[in-house]
């Protein structure tokens, strides 16, 4: 009997998962276990499934995902730190028929870019904003972020975040949900298969809102890990995230179809 080669195995009928062609073949620059790559992939899968590859325009941030444009295979612009919503605003206003999205970390969206975030949301720009909240500045080596949890150790809060002197974690998603300019606001995660499926449904809903011309921003927070910044192994970081991040940053929809979701 002839030996079975790799080529014999890699056949369409044997494949249980195929990478979307809207992810490039470049090696991701992310640490193994990091949620950024999964979030990228979900966005690109949705763009492909919606048949929007020729109409999508993405805005990348400054942060670990600064190179998002290397991986997401659509037209992309790389913004200055925090300014992605301003770029996206103009792109959408000047090309109302295009599908425009921004992708930002928590330092980018909730610290240096707070004004751009709040005002793009408040004006009700018809864009999708994806917000990766990992509670830390990954790219610059693990400094405190506006989202760093109380008591959490980072390189600039080496004894833990002291709320008295360092201020409180900022729940940006709750904040933007209050603004009349947001249409859909949700908080999801991508650390387990079921979380991934749910997050993808939400991302699809967000992009569909834009395609349907729904008024306002569709805003998706993804609570994610930064195993390197948190100084944990990937699996341990996911457990830590479930135990510490999720109680503070509760997963679920905050606003759907322009209506705030009642807390049970």
């Amino acid at each position, binding site marked *: 009997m002839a030996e079975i080669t790799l080529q014999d195995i890699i056949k369409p009928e044997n494949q249980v998962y195929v990478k979307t062609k809207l992810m490039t073949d470049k090696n991701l620059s992310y640490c193994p276990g990091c949620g950024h790559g999964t979030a990228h992939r979900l966005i690109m899968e949705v763009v492909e499934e919606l048949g929007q590859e020729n*109409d999508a325009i993405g805005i990348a941030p400054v942060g670990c995902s600064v190179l998002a444009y290397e991986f997401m*295979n659509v037209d992309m612009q790389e*913004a*200055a730190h925090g300014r992605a919503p301003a770029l996206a605003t*103009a792109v959408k*206003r*000047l090309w109302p028929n295009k599908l425009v999205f921004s992708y930002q970390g928590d330092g980018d969206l909730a610290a240096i870019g707070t004004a751009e975030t709040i005002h793009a949301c408040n004006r009700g720009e018809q864009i999708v904003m994806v917000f990766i909240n990992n509670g830390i500045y990954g790219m610059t080596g693990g400094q405190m972020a506006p989202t760093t949890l109380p008591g959490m150790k980072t390189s600039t809060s080496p004894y833990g975040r002291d709320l008295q002197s360092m201020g409180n974690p900022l729940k940006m998603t709750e904040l933007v949900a209050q603004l009349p300019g947001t249409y859909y606001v949700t908080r999801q995660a991508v650390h387990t298969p079921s979380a991934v499926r749910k997050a993808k449904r939400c991302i699809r809903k967000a992009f569909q809102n834009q395609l349907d011309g729904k008024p306002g921003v569709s805003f998706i927070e993804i609570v994610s890990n930064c195993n390197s910044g948190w100084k944990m192994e990937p699996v341990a970081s996911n457990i830590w995230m479930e135990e510490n991040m999720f109680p503070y940053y509760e997963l679920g929809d905050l606003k759907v179809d322009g209506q705030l979701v009642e807390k049970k």
Partner: protein
Amino acid sequence: MGELRLMKGNEALAEAAIRAGVDGYFGYPITPQSEVIEYLMAEKPFERTGMVVLQAESEVASINMLYGGGGTGKKVMTSSSSPGISLMQEGLSYMAGAEIPCVVANVVRGGPGLGDIQPAQSDYFQSVKGGGHGDYRLPVLAPASVQEMSDFVPLSFDLAFKYRTPVLIVSDGLIGQMMEKVELFDTIPRLTDEEVIARYPWATNGKPKGKERRILTSLDLDPHKLEKHNFHLQDKYKQIREEEVRYEMIDCDDADYIIIAYGSSARISQKTLQLAREEGIKVGLLRPITLWPFPKQPIDDLVNKGVKGFLSVEMSAGQMVEDIRLTVRERTKVEHFGRYGGVIHSPEEVLEALKNKIIGD
């Protein structure tokens, strides 16, 4: 002959933006240029030409809106005054790096800091030396009349798209606020989306079917690649230096002394020329229209012709004078005169300075 109107400089700039086929104006109010966005809002340019006008939350946001919009190949523009332009420097640096065309008008006021709201020319360094971080230059046009506030808008867009760079229009509170007769050019239709897509293949307006997608970024983590990109930028700046110098010369042919002045200072100095000639002093005026690239050649020619001295007249503590000195290289006298902090010099003061600092005893 185009339509004649009596307008403020700021209004002429705004009207010219609509007529130049600008697709988007994004701005934030600041004196002495708020008339620009006020005029635009009142004119409903969206109804006239389809032009989008948006009041942003800050100059930081406006300049980054220009990055986004300009990156899609649309004609985008903002205007501000000194403190607001300082806030835009980060964005301008990114756009220089990513090679995004746009036009930014600075109606300069007195500084530093909040300064005042009176005319000044103290943003020369910031305008011509780069302004933000990194090795870059921006073409800078300096209007000296309400007419030029209008004419320089389409010219700036030509340069911005020809060289894929932000272009600055640097005027001052005097040019912005004063009213003069202006002959408006006929409206240039905005490009259609299809025209934009066909004309600017680098622009990120949706990956074309069957073609490579586009990326606009100023980042390259590989220093050798970034150096190469910088070489490319420097080549572009060299070409701009060679091809885009603009200036005006008045009464220079027989002049013993030359005043070099731009914008409002050039207007004031024209009167000085007349006063000097009445006294038998032969003075000419060299007016840089492009502050960068700086008109070195005509200065060099004047030195070679044997003029006895140059007076740089600026509403600043002496900024352009440094570029003149770099050109003259001590072959003849170069001095600076100017009032600043929002104070405007009179033609008589300029003549006095010429006599004291250049003609001497």
